[in-house]
Every structure is written in structure tokens, then in C-alpha cells.
């Protein structure tokens, strides 16, 4: 899997404070686990990689994204399914995941996050030598 250098996983960064009235959208996600770790995919339409913020604080993972869409001046809303401009969702991580090695990639509004298991928990192939 290729790594997008524009996305940085920021650790222990202070959460930004914001008004209570601001609504968050909950992005749709696929989460699955295999022997190497957990993969998370999120739909974040309109979020450019620089408006995406992934934070790991202790065992909490927070994914936040701000929608940035160019709109012409004097535009009036006629219809809206998407009624907020900020996505947020958070998860509790478990200790077998190596939070230092989380990698992220963003393509066409889809975020793919790889949360690998710690080195010592990675599956190992043991070769059997026949003497």
C-alpha cells in the first residue's frame, strides 16, 4: 500500500475547542482485521488531505475532516443532504496495536487507515528444518 506523505498522524495534539452548536457528520466506515492489523476505511467526501486531522492520544483515535468546497458568491441552498461541513468520529484503540506505525492514505475522498499490530504480535513463519 502506498503512503501519502501529505497525511500526518499527529500524536497527543490538543483538540481544538469549538462552539457547541457546530454539528458533526459521522462518516460511514468499513473496519476489518486480519493477522497483521486493523484496516479502517472512511468516506470523507469534500475533505482534502490537508483538511484531514488524525490524532492518537493515548488509546483514543480521533478522525476529523473539514469539507472544503468552492462555492460561487451569492449562492442560495436549494436542496441539501449534507447539512454540516465537519466530519468526526473517534475510537478506542486496543493495546496490541502499534499507534506509532499507523499509516494513512487518501484517495477520491476515501481515507484508508492501517493500524498494524505490534511487532511481537505479527504472525511469524517458523521454518522447520529437517535434520
Amino acid at each position: 500500500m502506498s503512503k501519502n506523505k501529505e497525511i500526518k498522524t499527529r500524536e497527543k495534539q490538543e483538540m481544538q475547542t469549538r462552539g457547541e452548536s457546530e454539528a458533526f457528520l459521522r462518516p460511514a466506515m468499513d473496519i476489518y482485521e486480519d493477522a497483521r492489523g486493523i484496516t479502517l476505511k472512511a468516506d470523507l467526501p469534500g475533505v482534502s488531505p490537508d483538511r484531514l486531522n488524525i490524532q492518537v492520544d493515548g488509546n483514543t483515535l480521533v478522525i476529523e475532516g473539514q469539507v472544503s468546497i468552492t462555492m460561487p458568491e451569492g449562492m442560495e441552498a436549494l436542496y441539501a443532504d449534507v447539512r454540516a461541513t465537519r466530519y468526526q468520529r473517534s475510537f478506542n484503540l486496543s493495546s496490541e496495536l502499534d499507534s506509532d506505525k499507523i499509516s494513512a492514505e487518501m484517495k477520491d475522498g476515501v481515507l484508508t487507515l492501517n493500524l498494524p499490530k505490534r511487532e511481537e504480535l505479527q504472525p511469524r513463519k517458523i521454518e522447520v528444518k529437517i535434520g
Partner: protein
Amino acid sequence: MWGYLTGIDDDVFEEFERMRRRMDQLYGAWPGSTGIRSVAAGTFPGINVGASPEQVDVYVFATGVDPKSLDISLQQNLLTIAGERKVELPEKAQVYRNERFSGGFQRALTLPEDVDPDKVSAAYRDGVLHLTLRRREAVRPRQIEVK
């Protein structure tokens, strides 16, 4: 003592009422009628439409879709967008959440009547398809100069 208790009850009811209003806002259960082509909340892809005197802007929130595979048509002022998004999960993995839409989709919506079908442009960026439809000259508000 009773006054005290009733006071709490009032607060609780008020809290419920506030919650109910918030839910209605979220799920769109307002008393007015909804559009005949409107869809359930959370339908893929979400669409926002904005209008200015010069143009109508349609934003289709379709992540992970090849924009070239989309079938977009405009019949009079009825815009139809159809396409497919395949979400594949590895067979051997243990799946915890599978919320992302997978399969074929079609959305239709009525735009203002004065959109010009010959002046439509489309761009796809960060998973959002942005259609710009120019409105016909005749109906645009005009500045009339007094000489």
C-alpha cells in the same frame, strides 16, 4: 418538597423536548411535505444543490467512484445521476463494520427550469462531483441603466 420534585420533572420534560426537536432536525421529520424525489437520509450519494442568478451548482458526495463511469443526464430540468461503487472487503478478514455503500445507485432531482442543458460542466475532486449548470440569459436579473 413537591415543588422541588415537580421542578425536576419539568426540567426532564424540557430536556426530552429539546432532544426530540434535535432528532427531528437530524432526521428531517419536519411537518411540511417533502419533495416527491427526495430520498431517505444517508442515501448514497448525498447531493447538495445551490443556486445563484447565473448558475446552478450540484454537489454529489460520491467518494471512491471513477467519475468517468458515472452516467449523468439532464432531461429538461430533471437531472439523473447513476453509477456504481464496489466496496470489496478481504475474504479472510474479520469484519467489524461495513457501513460504506456498495452497489449501483441512481439519484434524480429537479433543478430550476431555466438551466441550459448545453452549458454544463463537471469536475471531480476529493470524492465530490461538482456540476455547474448555467442558467439561460433571459431569466437572469438585468441591470437597467437610466440614461
